[in-house]
């Protein structure tokens, strides 16, 4: 589905920035979501304690994940749920296709699941003759547009209502030129209601899987996960191994944080706890690894598995806001995506840890206190060491390091040349220099501080 190929974040971001009013619109929309998050958080005096508690629960989970997974599986089976295990995306997709195939099902409704985006399930099923309709409004919009979601919580945040109106006019028969969100939502409601009522299979993601009880919790505002799951014969839920939490009472921590961090709402409209299948129906859970166990073994990066997919780091990230989700060319965009993706394919995603100023706002809004910006810094070191950095950059860096290690070389600059900055790109005043495109060079002063200081010292003597 994705037509974004081998371009880097910088190139894709530059293309996004060709339309400045659109960048402003995107930036302001997401900043507004961040502002709503701030207001919601500030209403909870114990907010920071909640974050710390959530972080500690997740640390515990990661320290005993195998035990919790086994406990979860045993309890889910006891509840009448069938549990499947998928080592990678291909196995995940195959399990789902087999489940559908065995039942002669070739049409499925699906609520939001970033894991299925990561696994490219829709494309796989389409190739195998299964029609999938995404039921989350934002996901349905990008599906009709033939695009991947650009945000994990707000999948079509990059689309203007007029564009959505055009898509709906073309695919769902809404009036030409209609762009009122109320009317477009109603159009989708009618269209998707028919889908819910006619699909025998429903797939959902999982927000939390509780080891103690074997139940899964799914959060939506639209009610689409429930509409799909309750009306279908078979409910398939895809979850990454990291979705486990130990006990039901821990939901009392996570559900307080999740939506406040995501959109500033105190909780989603629906927080649905699926424990047992309905009479005469089936629930299947597919537990997916797809690189997560490897990430667990990377000491510097394992904390990324604490993520509860709230999207707060994207909303606060100035780079995300001003470059758009598609610039990250991976299923999960933004700061969290940039520390998850290199684990899956270091070469393909070597650019992402550099798509940040390391400003640190992401780590501060993270409800489970992932040290996102520190991990970005650490991924940079790994990527360079593994040889995925451009040669020219390596040469420049070596020259710079050499110069800066030597006081004599450093001082030999003089007031015009400022040799130490030969390798600092902003010190070259020409059109080929990216700095100069939108910014003037710093003015070279008469003398450096070092020179001034020496003279002052002489004067004092």
């Amino acid at each position, binding site marked *: 589905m994705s037509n974004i190929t081998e371009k880097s974040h910088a190139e894709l971001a530059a293309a996004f920035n060709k339309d400045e009013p659109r960048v402003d619109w995107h930036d302001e929309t997401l900043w507004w979501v961040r502002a709503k998050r701030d207001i919601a958080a500030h209403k909870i005096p114990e907010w920071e304690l909640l974050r710390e508690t959530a972080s500690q629960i997740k640390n515990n989970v990661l320290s005993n994940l195998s035990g919790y997974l086994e406990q979860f599986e045993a309890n889910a089976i006891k509840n009448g749920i069938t549990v499947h295990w998928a080592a990678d995306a291909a196995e995940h997709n195959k399990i789902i296709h087999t489940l559908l195939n065995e039942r002669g099902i070739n049409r499925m409704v699906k609520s939001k699941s970033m894991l299925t985006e990561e696994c490219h399930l829709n494309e796989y099923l389409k190739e195998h003759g299964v029609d999938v309709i995404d039921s989350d409004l934002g996901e349905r919009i990008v599906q009709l547009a033939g695009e991947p979601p650009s945000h994990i919580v707000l999948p079509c945040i990059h689309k203007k209502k007029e564009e959505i109106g055009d898509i709906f006019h073309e695919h769902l028969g809404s009036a030409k030129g209609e762009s009122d969100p109320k009317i477009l939502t109603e159009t989708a409601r009618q269209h998707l209601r028919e889908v819910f009522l006619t699909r025998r299979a429903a797939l959902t993601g999982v927000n939390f899987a509780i080891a103690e009880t074997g139940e899964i919790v799914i959060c939506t505002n639209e009610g689409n996960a429930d509409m799909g799951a309750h009306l279908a014969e078979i409910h398939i839920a895809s979850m990454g191994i990291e979705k486990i939490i130990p006990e039901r009472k821990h939901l009392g921590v996570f559900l307080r944080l999740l939506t406040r961090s995501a959109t500033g709402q105190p909780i989603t409209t629906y927080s649905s706890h699926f424990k047992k299948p309905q009479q005469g129906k089936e629930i299947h859970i597919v537990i997916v690894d797809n690189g997560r166990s490897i990430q667990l073994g990377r000491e510097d990066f394992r904390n990324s598995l604490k993520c509860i997919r709230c999207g707060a780091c994207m909303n606060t990230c*100035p780079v995300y806001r001003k470059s758009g989700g598609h610039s990250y060319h991976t299923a999960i965009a933004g700061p969290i995506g940039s520390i998850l993706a290199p684990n899956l394919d270091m070469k393909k995603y070597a650019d992402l840890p550099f798509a940040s100023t390391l*400003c640190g706002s992401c780590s501060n809004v993270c409800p489970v206190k992932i040290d996102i910006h520190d991990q970005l810094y650490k991924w940079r070191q790994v990527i360079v060491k593994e040889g995925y950095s451009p040669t020219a950059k390596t040469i420049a860096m070596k020259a710079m390091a050499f110069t800066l290690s030597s006081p004599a070389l450093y001082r030999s600059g003089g007031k015009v040349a400022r040799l130490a900055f030969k390798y600092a790109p902003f010190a070259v005043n020409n059109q080929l220099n990216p700095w100069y*495109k*939108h910014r003037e060079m710093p003015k070279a002063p008469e003398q450096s501080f070092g020179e001034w200081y020496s003279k002052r010292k002489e004067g004092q003597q």
Partner: protein
Amino acid sequence: MKVALFVPCYVDQFYPKAAIATLELLEKLGVEVHYPKNQTCCGQPMANSGYEHLTTGCNNLFIDNFSGYDYIVCPSGSCTLHIKEHLHSPEKEDQAVSIRKKVYELTEFLIDILKVDHLQARFPYKVGLHQSCHGLRGLRISQMSELVAPAFSKPAQLLDMVQGLELVPLGRQDDCCGFGGTFCVAEEAVSSKMGKDRVDDHIEHGAQYITSADLSCLMHMEGILRRQNSNVKVIHVAEILNHHSHE
């Protein structure tokens, strides 16, 4: 109290006035300041680009220059943070540890160590305070807008002591300016857009000067202001706090 002045390389080369102001201000406050003249750079430009393994030379040089002082004071939050977090040396780790504990950004040194509560300074202008990310979220010299915690700001506290100075409020009090070291050229489009938006926030709120405890951010914003032929100027916080003797 034996204090070493750590002047970041780009400040030394491009913004000597900020370093001079830092030195004079500290001396005015009765501090004996030494400037180790063989200093160059903290190594951050390489490290943030993924080449921390190339910073051994810089690190050893830094340790040689700055060992044996009670405090090391620097007019840059970013460089201070880099030393605090990343100064290591296989041969001289003890000295590195000691330096990491003694290095202070100027405004935190003034507030936390010197406990400055008044200044003889006058700067009768409207000033916008840019919170540099590394000073803010790394060194925590101000409270971060993301956290549910009491507000404070060491640079603002000092600026409040300056006669005639009016701090303007901002729409986004601590959004990043987009400099980000090599990010500013590697991600030129987003970087300059971020800088432009930051500058606009200050201008819209009537700032005549934009100040900060970090010159790298100011250098970035100055580049944008000058391209726009704006009358708004950037000035390092030390120059304002020292703004009495030379008008």
